[in-house]
């Protein structure tokens, strides 16, 4: 086992789109990875599933910041989710999972807790 044994390699930097998100498939299901080059840190990962619609779409939302908090707006009903915490800015009782993410060389690695592992229905 290497030092990053529970850090899943999900894609490379080339797959990322600056100021935007991409979706990756992990053992915890679909995750959206965002790359905001002007932020520190520049990488964020939250669940790709929009809790309001159940559709896997959050990576396709518009990113930005609201009062300094980095966010993505759901492309379906436009609620904003914090990229750091996954909390919905319009309704704080709603929260999507967020995941630690880091760059390892040119690989993007996600830390997916074992407890969250589930298997997809498809």
């Amino acid at each position, binding site marked *: 086992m290497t030092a990053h044994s529970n850090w899943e390699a999900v894609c490379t930097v080339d*797959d990322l789109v600056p*100021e935007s998100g991409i*979706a990756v498939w992990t053992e915890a299901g679909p995750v959206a990875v965002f790359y905001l080059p002007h932020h520190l840190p520049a990488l964020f990962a939250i669940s790709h599933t929009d809790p309001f*619609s159940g559709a*896997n*779409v959050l990576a396709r939302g518009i990113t930005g910041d609201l009062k300094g908090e980095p966010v993505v707006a759901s492309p379906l009903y436009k609620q*904003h989710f914090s990229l750091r915490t996954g909390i919905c800015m319009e309704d704080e009782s709603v929260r999507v999972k967020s995941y630690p993410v880091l760059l390892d060389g040119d690989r993007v690695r996600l830390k997916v807790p074992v407890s969250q592992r589930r298997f997809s*229905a498809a």
Partner: protein
Amino acid sequence: MANKTLIVIGNGMVGHHFLEQFAETPAAADYDIHVFGEEPLIAYDRVHLSEYFGGSTHADLALGTAKDYAAKGLTLHLDEPVTELDRDNRKVLTPKGEYTYDAVVLATGSYPFVPPIDGHDRDHCLVYRTLADLDAIRASAEGRKTGVVVGGGLLGLEAANALKSLGLEAHVVEFAPRLMPVQLDADGGALLKRKIEELGVQVHTEKATTAIVPGEEARLRMNFSDDTHLETDLIVFSAGIRPQDTLARSSGLEIGERGGIVIDDQCTTSDPQVFAIGECALWDNRIFGLVAPGYTMARTLAARLNQDAEAGFRGADMSTKLKLLGVDVGSIGDAHGATPGARNIRFNDEQAGTYGRLVISEDGKKLLGAILVGDNGPYDTLLQYALNGIDLPKNPESLILPVSEGGAPALGPDALPETASICSCHNVSKGDICGAIDAGCTDLGAVKGETKASTGCGGCAALLKSVVDNELEKRGVEVSKDICEHFPYSRQELFHLVKVNGIRTFHSLIKQHGKGHGCDICKPAVASILATCWNEHIMATDHVPLQDTNDTFMANMQKNGTYSIVPRIPGGEITPDKLIVLGEVAKEYNLYTKITGGQRVDLFGATLSELPEIWEKLIAAGFETGHAYGKSVRTVKSCVGSTWCRYGVQDSVGMAIRLEERYKGLRSPHKLKFAVSGCTRECAEAQSKDIGVIATENGWNLYVCGNGGMRPRHADLFATDLSDDELIRTVDRVLMFYVRTADRLQRTSVWLENLEGGLDYLKEVVLDDSLGLGEELEAHMQAIIGTYQCEWKTTVEDPEKRKRFREFVNAPEKKDPVQHWTTERDQRRPLAKADIA
């Protein structure tokens, strides 16, 4: 179990509405319900009767079907008039039999009054009330030249328009000294007369017809009391309506002095088992010749049969707003100033052809009534003042003065009563919004979060913003016109900054003129501005992250995260081969297929990764993107025009294709819809479009800034009889001016309403080139057209761009796991979230 019988006599608009309101209520279970209609056809929309001449059929106008009636357990007897109401034995008689009842509803409507002039019953003397009447008029007009309408009221003018649409030279003969004597005063009537005459209908006022005799040049001759005469091929009487109270009268029910079945607030007649609703009913000595009061009576009766003690009919507002032969006419409340002490303000602009009159209470505080001719712009505002008893502003004349002189204060959101529904998805009223603000919400976002308003379909976003801004302003909160927290500018100001400083990326714009990193409000707005200014491919790397998903992936995201695809079909014209390709592609990818209102085909249910594959096939077959995802030109709808249609006067399809090819790809603050009709029958519904074109004998009439959808607005006539090239040049200018000056997400209709100086100003800028901008606007449009590319073509050809369409970048074979489907009417559709276990 039903043990009683309810008989409804009359299957017209109000009778039908009663059945709709009553049939499924608890009380209805007690009754066997029988409906008798004299007409052979099931109830239809009489208000839109004239559309029958525009090509609508009975099926289009029908309010229900025999199947609906049967499903609700109603027994329908059409073509079976009730000939007697026998109240002593509680039964009704028809030519086919007798039926006993426990309760009867009379909904017999009214009939056209035909003055007892000598010869009034000759052949080709007709009326205008039923579909059968219209069939008779059409038959009589066939191959003929002239038609006369007797009566210059609202219905008479509508009938005159119908005669005109049948190709007849139309005349209106009115006994009174002016047109629409009920709704208008002398000045208003005179202006209406002038305008209608300009449209080619001849108006003869103060003419009393003494006899109708055989004609010399035409079928009939009308002799008038002043010894003049008029020859005509047919006559339509529209001299008022009379309540159809024959049955009630002969059965001894109480009847008003001048007709009408007397009812109380509960719609009960003098016999407690007999009710009357609609135009046959007389309430407080008044007949209501409009459909809305009839509907209110119908609802009242349905409620009262369900023992609702609150239900009651309490009169109705008879204000009317119409477009007669294309001329705006509005009449509100006490239009003639009959209230004691009432004062008048009149503004008669003979030059512009508009007339406005306000009737104001003695103390000058309230609006009692109003008349408008030539421009109904102020109507909605005035009606709100009158209906809700809102205090008038200090200078009420500004309400009817042209904007440039007084600055007509649009009442806007203030006028809406607290109960007005703002967001119908979440049922949020204006009162709810005010409540949220009073409870501490200080901006739009907070109000949305609190009330959920505008988080459903989002269609009310603009209205919600105006209400919220207005309420905040009233509470002294400074409302900024800033587009969002990142830019202290409006969209228009940003447009200028981009254009003037030659800014080409969002990044440099926000660095130089904004703060933070942007958001889902300012990013798409700037993307659209950049696209308009520089027309670069929207998938250029810098622009990708700025766009809504629909723009980024050039397809429309649906509720389950899949997309729909709409290829361009210019003018709605498509070859069989291309149609087959659409079918084949849809079949291959199992796409739900539906025809759109804009005459194209929408293919639903494609996953992100399927989009480029599908487009590859479509492009190979010659399709281009339809921009259904963009704030840009959607479709140019057209009718088939002179190429095929007997009535067409110009090649509307050809013009539609030319317009669509020209403006496709133009990015704008909101979507743009066009239509081209080949004749005044207007089958393409051009007057509900942003840009509407209607063919005339001499060229094209251009209408601008119409809207269908949530807030319908009739387009305004902008220029007449344009040649092909003049039309294009004018549209170039109007569109470019809109693109440059409108706010984000502002449709042309709202833009025009907010444009200082309104339509006249727009005409000055575009037609008279008052700003000297004309050539620049055209050149700008030309530049955009010159750089057009089908963005789907560019995308499928570029492997880098195609990468964006991977669903999961690390698992290309992986399918989206939460798409649940079911089959309905032989096609696939997503399961609702609630149905998924």
